[in-house]
């Protein structure tokens, strides 16, 4: 350990660049882990929500609604159908936007959002996606389902949103993975070069150690320890940066995702992220120094 710390003190800029590249890599890993977790939660939220929502015209009667619901529930492939009144719609809206005064309309000229401006709806959950067509045709024929200015019945199929969201999530995950792999390779190469330079800079000393009967493990141990120190520091700084980024973006994210993800993110999640980054950082540095040491062992035979 002493030798490793001495090596770091001797070449602080090399140490700094190693810690920087690991921090950067692990910062990106941390951010993408959080994004992946968030997108997974959002997808799960959409998947557990009603699959079809039909918005109703104002002035519908309870009999009309009851009739439509009984038709729906009697349809094959429908799990359940629920009526959501204007007042309930307002509660759902308030819950989804949190206390954002802009979205609640309290600080705008549009006026406060009230139950009157929100439509009542029927939310239908299908047990079989193949029933979507039948459900849609029943809703299309219903008189109480409202009509858009384009003349279409106002029916939402969140399933489309889910598939769209899945597509985007997968694209983000894919891009993240490619970025992480590229940064990991750069990181491994950087540490490998730094450790190799250090080893070759002390080859006279290493030669002496070999003549004194030192085994390869004894010789490379300080360099592996040094690399592990880089890994630990890099993981810690990477986590700090991702934690700061998360705290910084919380006021922006909370009103938009508040209904799906609870903010602030529990500290336990961040601690688990730290543990993961530490393991990843140590693995990175271990692999890098192993490659550097393997080159040395091969050359010094």
């Amino acid at each position, binding site marked *: 350990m002493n030798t490793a710390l001495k090596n770091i003190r001797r070449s602080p800029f090399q140490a700094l660049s190693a810690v920087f590249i690991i921090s950067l890599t692990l910062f990106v890993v941390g951010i993408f882990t959080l994004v992946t977790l968030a997108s997974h939660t959002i997808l799960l939220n959409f998947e557990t929500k009603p699959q079809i929502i039909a918005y109703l015209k104002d002035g519908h009667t309870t009999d009309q609604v009851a009739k439509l619901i009984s038709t729906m529930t009697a349809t094959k492939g429908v799990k359940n159908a629920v009526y959501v009144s204007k007042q309930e719609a307002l509660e759902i809206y308030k819950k989804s936007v949190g206390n954002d005064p802009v979205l609640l309309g309290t600080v705008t000229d549009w006026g406060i959002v009230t139950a009157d401006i929100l439509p009542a709806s029927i939310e239908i959950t299908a047990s079989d996606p193949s029933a979507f067509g039948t459900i849609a045709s029943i809703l299309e024929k219903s008189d109480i389902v409202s009509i858009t200015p384009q003349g279409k019945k106002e029916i939402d199929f969140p399933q489309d949103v889910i598939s769209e969201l899945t597509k985007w999530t997968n694209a983000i995950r894919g891009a993240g993975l490619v970025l992480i792999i590229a940064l990991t390779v750069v990181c491994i190469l950087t540490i490998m070069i730094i450790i190799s330079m250090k080893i070759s800079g002390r080859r006279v000393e290493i030669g002496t*150690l070999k003549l*004194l009967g030192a085994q390869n493990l004894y010789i490379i141990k300080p360099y592996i320890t040094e690399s592990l120190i880089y890994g630990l520091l890099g993981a810690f700084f990477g986590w700090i940066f991702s934690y700061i980024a998360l705290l910084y973006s919380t006021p922006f994210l909370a009103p938009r995702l508040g209904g799906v993800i609870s903010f602030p993110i529990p500290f336990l999640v961040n601690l688990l992220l730290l543990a993961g980054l530490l393991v990843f950082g140590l693995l990175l540095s271990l692999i890098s120094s192993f490659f550097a040491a393997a080159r040395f062992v091969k050359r010094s035979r």
Partner: protein
Amino acid sequence: MDDIDFSVSPGEFVIITGKSGAGKTTLGRLLIRDLLPTKGKVVVDGEDLNKIKPKSVSLIRRKVGFVFQDYKIILDKTVGENIAIALEIGGYDKKKITGKITRLLEMVGIPGKEFLFPNQLSGGEIQRAAIARAIACDPPILFADEPTGNLDKDTSIEIFKLLQKINEGGTTVIMATHDVTLIGLNPDRNIHLEKGKIVSDTDGKPGKAEEKHKIKKE
């Protein structure tokens, strides 16, 4: 080296003399398998160095303490740290290292110098430190390659006497030197090399060597 054949008994003090390029250093390097013979074999402590596995080379090197012509003292480490490295390599108990260094430095005649860096020492003191490092793990064999090469006559004699003292403790000492005046200081045996060949080998004193080896074993 060309067509040479000799053996050294445990406890012997052998001086190998010869001009520069006679093969003295090559002999030492063969002894620690820093070089492999193109022909023939080198046997150390019953092990044929041609046949040992690469992993076992370090074990052989721990059996042969080596005092290098250019000292090979690590310059950015203190005398104590240089010796501690040899002790660590030899698997010496870490708690006892400090005490052992103190004793070694007293033995080689530079007590209290463990915290000094090599550039704070004289040539003779560095050589003593190098000897302390070489004998740190009590190797059965000590090979000193031109240990007096860069020293004045008085210091050379002191170093020679130190090696004799180590030999009296039972360690087999092989000293390579071009300084033929040291032969007069009564080593057990002198092998003279010329152009890689042995041109003379004085009789050893097996009885005396055996006695010293017995002391070492005890």
